């Protein structure tokens, strides 16, 4: 009875997150679900607080990322980088697609996939609109590379931080299992994009790159400080990952440092910070931890995961089980709840000790790459597309889904094979 109630609340909450009834944000649906878990006794308050408190590293990491992205945006870093990509394209729309792709991969690697998908996209929209190019191929490129490149470093996706806290794998070990898979995913996604959009991006453009670069970095001193700060932060992330230091602390220290620079240069704007730092995201994540703790305490996550790995006999099959499990679940709900369920199940004894590491690496790859199937990793995209069609808007969003159907299986297969081989 107890476990059935916890499962019911969990599933109902996930449906509310996906469907967004009456446009209620996912944070508030998740919070309502978490409160229900507490009220029904599926989780006690102490257990809920422990579930949230034990993930302090992830919360700090998100905060640090948001502050860093906000200051980088205030300094014009993203505009400058996109202008550089346009300048290097030499007037070729195709080369610009390639450059935007590379830029997205670099920003994802060092500032996370969310920074790429949320902050770089409007910048790319702006520059391609100004250059009178077709906007959609470039926006799609940014969105897809944000997922394709999100395995490269432990900081490239908050999900990696979450999984990394369980794996406790130093950078060398992490890269020995995931670097080849990450590079292969980026290369495959790029190749598909260049092939699919070859004709569409054939238009040439004129670009006054000198004035664009100068305009992007308006306050030169501030811009240089921020650029140097971002370089130092990237280095600190690499060193921290190698030494297994808490990445959340590094992120907050870096973001705080950049914010101090912005304050000293009188460049901080409260409306800018409000736009970048989203308290609702913290509510969403905290609520998800409570919800997952509820189903974990009821023994559901362990049962689910042990069912998924029942046929796994060796590392390779454990990688595949983890990868497929999170890839599929990420597209049904969202990759954050998906990975939480799998991590919880593995932690609660759902995976044999000898297969736990390959299973978790597979699960991480599935949660990072899987979202490219339905672009934001949720069924909600499908529902949204239906609404958009009803409104009669001409948007090539179905192209987006078709691209996902092409890119996601290819990258998942390549990643699965390469990660499995890394355990030989």
């Amino acid at each position, binding site marked *: 009875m107890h476990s059935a109630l916890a499962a019911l609340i969990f599933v109902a909450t996930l449906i509310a997150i996906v469907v967004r009834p009456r446009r209620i*944000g*996912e*944070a508030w649906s998740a919070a309502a679900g978490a409160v229900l878990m507490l009220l029904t006794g599926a989780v006690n308050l102490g257990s809920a607080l422990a579930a949230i408190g034990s993930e302090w590293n992830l919360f700090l990491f998100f905060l640090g990322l*948001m502050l860093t992205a906000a200051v980088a*945006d205030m300094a014009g870093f993203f505009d400058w980088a996109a202008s550089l990509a346009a300048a290097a394209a030499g007037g070729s729309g195709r080369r610009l697609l390639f450059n935007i792709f590379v830029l997205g991969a670099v920003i994802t690697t060092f500032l996370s996939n*969310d920074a790429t*998908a*949320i902050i770089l*996209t*409007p*910048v790319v*929209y*702006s520059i391609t*609109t*100004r250059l*009178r190019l*077709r*906007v*959609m191929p470039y*926006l*799609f490129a*940014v*969105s897809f590379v944000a997922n394709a490149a999100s395995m490269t470093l432990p900081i490239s996706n908050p999900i990696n931080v979450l999984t990394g806290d369980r794996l406790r794998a130093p950078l060398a070990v992490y890269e020995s299992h995931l670097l080849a898979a990450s590079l292969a995913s980026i290369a495959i996604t790029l190749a598909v994009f260049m092939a699919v959009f070859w004709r*569409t991006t054939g*238009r040439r453009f004129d670009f006054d790159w000198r004035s664009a670069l100068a305009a992007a970095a308006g306050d030169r001193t501030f811009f240089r400080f921020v650029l140097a700060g971002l370089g130092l932060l990237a280095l600190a992330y690499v060193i921290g990952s190698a030494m297994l230091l808490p990445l959340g602390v590094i992120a907050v220290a870096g973001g705080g440092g950049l914010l101090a620079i912005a304050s000293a240069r009188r460049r901080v704007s409260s*409306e*800018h910070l409000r*736009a*970048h730092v*989203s308290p*609702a*995201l913290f509510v*969403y994540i905290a609520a998800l931890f409570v919800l997952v703790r509820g189903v974990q305490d009821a023994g559901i996550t362990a049962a689910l995961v042990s069912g998924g790995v029942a046929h796994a006999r060796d590392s390779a099959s454990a990688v595949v089980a983890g990868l497929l499990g999170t890839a599929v679940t990420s597209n049904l709900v*969202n990759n*954050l709840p998906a990975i939480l369920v799998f991590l919880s199940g593995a932690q609660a004894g759902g995976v044999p000790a000898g297969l736990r590491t390959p299973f978790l690496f597979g699960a991480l790859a599935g949660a990072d790459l899987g979202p490219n199937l339905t*672009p*934001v*990793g949720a069924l*909600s*995209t499908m529902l*949204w*597309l239906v609404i*958009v069609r009803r*409104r*009669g*808007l*001409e*948007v*090539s*969003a179905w*192209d*987006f889904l078709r691209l996902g159907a092409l890119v996601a299986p290819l990258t998942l297969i390549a990643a699965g094979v390469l990660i499995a081989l890394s355990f030989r």
Partner: protein
Amino acid sequence: MRILVLVDGFHTGELLNTLGRLVSLQEAQLLLVYVEGPGPRTGLDLVRRRPGGDRLPPHRARELGEVELERGASALAEAQNLARPMVGSVETMRVRGEPGRAVCDFAALERVDLIAIRAGGRDQPLLGPRSLGPIARFVSDHSPCPVLLLRADR
């Protein structure tokens, strides 16, 4: 004759040249219309649709509005330059809305005699059952006046 030409900013030269070969433009009045449609913004919303991606920073929202205006103005200026040597009178107009509906509404309002529009969309085949783009299809279905669908010479 008042002819409404939908300018998309990508195929203007091709569109006007084909129109000029088919219709005597010396006595015609061309109304070049650029529609600021919701498509690209909808695409931006789609790719930013993840937790934390709901709002654009205010400076970015302002900037996007400006570049959209710039794009429309530049597309219309280009079209006007190309059309001037071909016709007696050219007017330009920028309207907002879903492109197909906006063109039909504007054509009715301005009492135009003919709408000239590119037949194919971005991914449409040149010929066959799906060769009409969504905007051309909507305009063909709902136009208050005759519609000239112009295909690329291939």
